[in-house]
């Protein structure tokens, strides 16, 4: 607990230290340090680091130009997300209909966010620049060596090489991961949906309304709350079953193949790997047609009389077996097909682990007269669990978001009969993630999709936090180095 408090406190202490240094730099710094407040390159210029001076001045100018000419169009409207609706007006000069100078709520949201991120980064650079200038001044006063360009080059290929290595990947993550995620998070607090679509319409902030409509049983017409509970339960059931069936199946299959009396291990393994080497969109779309209402499996079942038998005992009421088109049937089929998809993967991993079993332990257990079942339960299983435990959690999270299996198998053929679900554009077989996808791609209901996205994140994060701590045996990285 103490450590936790320390961890939370640390960033604040860091920030306070930084500001403290900044204040000292301003008070004790010379003219050029203070001049750096306005002209960021001043300090570097004074210390004859001309290239650095030029670069940081260029950065300053770019940020200022960006703020004046670009950000200023969007930031002031951030609190309303725009007030001027798009209208076409007749222009007397050009004799054409033209759009007025309208606001685009989405652009305001996005560019304001981008500007804020840029400003925060710039602010950090700005503060650190002043502190750095003061350090340089002190170094100069003490007659210490000030880095030349050549020295800097050596520094950034040496102990600061990580800056070079990480800058591009981090930039990519910020642009294509963090900013989009923050945008989605903000959209959860707006009324951005099919009736409020930029550029023709505006959307605005609505506070927690979307969360309320997701978690309460809702109004009279749209019952998101009902659909949410149904989809959430199926998502969790799916994730548990999908994870454990493939995990246990994989270990069993691996130990079957790796049994010392089995011949042609490589052959068996390759046969299973072939099924996952076929791209999922091919194999899953194929299976969708394989099990279609009028598909080949149904023909075979009808020929051998299974369909009639099932109809006679009242399990089905149709002239075919609705493998992927009726609730219940579809749920079971999805889990079975997922076993087909997932077991070979798990088999591969389990094989790697089983090959490295502590043989001496097993031998001594056998000497003591343990049966193979006992060895499997008391030595093999705990060992495998210990090593693949963290991967199990990752698999669980991955299955919560297992888009491919559900979407490719049910998209276009599964139609829900439940009106309440249909009102919320959900289906019995939907996971949260496929529901989110349908809401955005087909119904443009971005606000609800964003809320569901946040819920998905919370569930994933919780399962990681709760389970991960127990399963991981500490950080292994130092041990092996």
């Amino acid at each position, binding site marked *: 607990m103490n450590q936790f408090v320390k961890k939370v406190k640390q960033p604040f202490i860091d920030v306070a230290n930084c500001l403290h240094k900044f204040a000292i730099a301003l008070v004790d710094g010379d003219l050029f340090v203070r001049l750096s407040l306005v002209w960021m390159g001043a300090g570097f210029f004074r210390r004859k680091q001309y290239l650095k001076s030029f670069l940081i001045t260029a950065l300053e100018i770019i940020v200022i130009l960006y703020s004046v000419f670009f950000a200023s169009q969007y930031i002031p409207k951030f609190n309303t997300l725009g007030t001027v609706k798009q209208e076409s007006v007749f222009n007397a000069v050009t004799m054409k209909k033209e759009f007025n100078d309208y606001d685009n709520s989405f*652009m305001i949201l996005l560019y304001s966010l981008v500007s804020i991120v840029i400003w925060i980064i710039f602010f950090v650079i700005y503060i650190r620049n002043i502190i750095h200038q003061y350090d340089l001044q002190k170094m100069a006063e003490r007659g210490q060596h000030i880095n030349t360009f050549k020295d800097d080059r*050596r520094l950034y*290929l*040496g102990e600061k*090489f*990580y800056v070079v*290595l*990480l800058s591009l*990947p981090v930039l*990519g*993550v910020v*642009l*294509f*991961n*963090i*900013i*989009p995620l923050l*945008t*989605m998070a903000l959209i959860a607090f707006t009324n951005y949906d099919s009736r409020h679509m930029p550029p023709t319409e505006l959307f605005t902030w609505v506070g927690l309304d979307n969360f309320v409509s997701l978690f309460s049983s809702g109004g009279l017409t749209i019952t998101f709350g009902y659909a949410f509970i149904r989809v959430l339960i199926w998502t969790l059931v799916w994730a548990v079953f999908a994870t454990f069936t493939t995990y246990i199946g994989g270990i069993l299959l691996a130990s*079957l193949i790796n*049994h010392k*009396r089995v*011949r042609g291990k490589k052959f068996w393994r390759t*046969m*299973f*790997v*072939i099924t*996952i080497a*076929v*791209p*999922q*969109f*091919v*194999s899953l*779309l*194929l299976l969708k*047609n*394989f099990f279609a209402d009028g598909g*080949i499996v149904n*023909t*075979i079942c009808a020929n051998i009389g299974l369909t009639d038998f099932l109809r006679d005992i009242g399990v089905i009421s149709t002239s075919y077996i609705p493998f992927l088109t009726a609730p219940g049937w579809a749920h079971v089929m999805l889990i079975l097909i997922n076993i*087909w998809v997932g077991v*070979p993967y798990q088999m*591969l*991993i389990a094989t*790697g*682990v089983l090959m490295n079993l502590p043989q001496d332990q097993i031998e001594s257990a056998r000497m003591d007269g343990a049966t193979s079942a006992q060895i499997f339960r008391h030595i093999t299983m705990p060992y495998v669990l210990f*090593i693949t435990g963290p991967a199990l959690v990752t698999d669980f999270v991955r299955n919560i*978001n297992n*888009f*491919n299996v559900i979407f490719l198998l049910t998209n276009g053929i599964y139609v829900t009969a439940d009106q309440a679900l249909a009102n919320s554009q959900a289906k019995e077989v939907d996971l949260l*993630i496929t529901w989110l*996808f349908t809401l*955005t791609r087909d119904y443009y209901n971005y606000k609800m999709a964003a809320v569901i*996205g946040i819920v998905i*994140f919370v569930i994933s994060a919780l399962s*990681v936090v709760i389970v991960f701590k127990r399963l991981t045996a500490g950080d*292994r990285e130092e041990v*092996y*180095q």
Partner: protein
Amino acid sequence: MKIKISDVLRHALLLVLVVIWIIPIVWLVATSFSKYTGMNTSTFFPAEWGLTSYKELLFNSDSVTQFPAWFKNTFIIASANCVISTAFVLMVAYATSCMRFKLRKTLMNIGITLNLFPSVLSMIAVYFILKSLNLTNNHFGLILVYSASSGLGYLIAKGFMDTIPASLREAAYIDGASEARVFFRIVVPMSRPIIVYTVISSFLVPWMDFVLATLMLNSGISSQWTVALGLNNMLDRMLLNTHFTMFCAGGVLVSIPISILFIIMQKFYVEGVTGGAVKG
């Protein structure tokens, strides 16, 4: 060695399982050689065998089937993604595994958190960002989508680099080598297995991905599509009866190179996932 009943049972069980696992694949291959263009629903194997669907697919391009163009598009996107992703993954893995700096743990934690968000989630926003930059329906945009945040997939490579003995690097430092030199001359050459893994797995992404491609290339111009989009389109209800065998033929044609790459890769995949722990 005496043959026991349990051995026979074991092999029989394996055989049954393999048959179950392989049936859909057999059906895929068999159907692709059918002369009939629609889905064969009455018999498992096609009534008449022929190469028509392959011929149509490869040499008769129309608005629906542009397989050579899709293959080329996917190949270009995959190659670009492969180069960028591999570079990013190696860079991040080296920085987090072999170097110690102040924000290292923080960055790694942020990475773990970001990995919890499914990519579909942020895609809508990415789509709008690319749209405002005029990069949707553009292969360059799709390459960016695949590769820009690939640095987040550094964990397996990092786990591998963790097992490279630090003494090797320290010896190089003492000889006066810079960090960059150690990276290029020692760690990268020693990480060959994990580089093969990263190269193949990032090359495979555009071949396997369907979701991001549908979102990003949505203009309906079929010559722009990737293989996944094109093949999926053939299963449209309107086209199913005329194009199902072509879908199967396309599926077989894509699967062959991918399977080969995948089988090469899986060895490294296992090493990567279980790597550090097993070696100890």
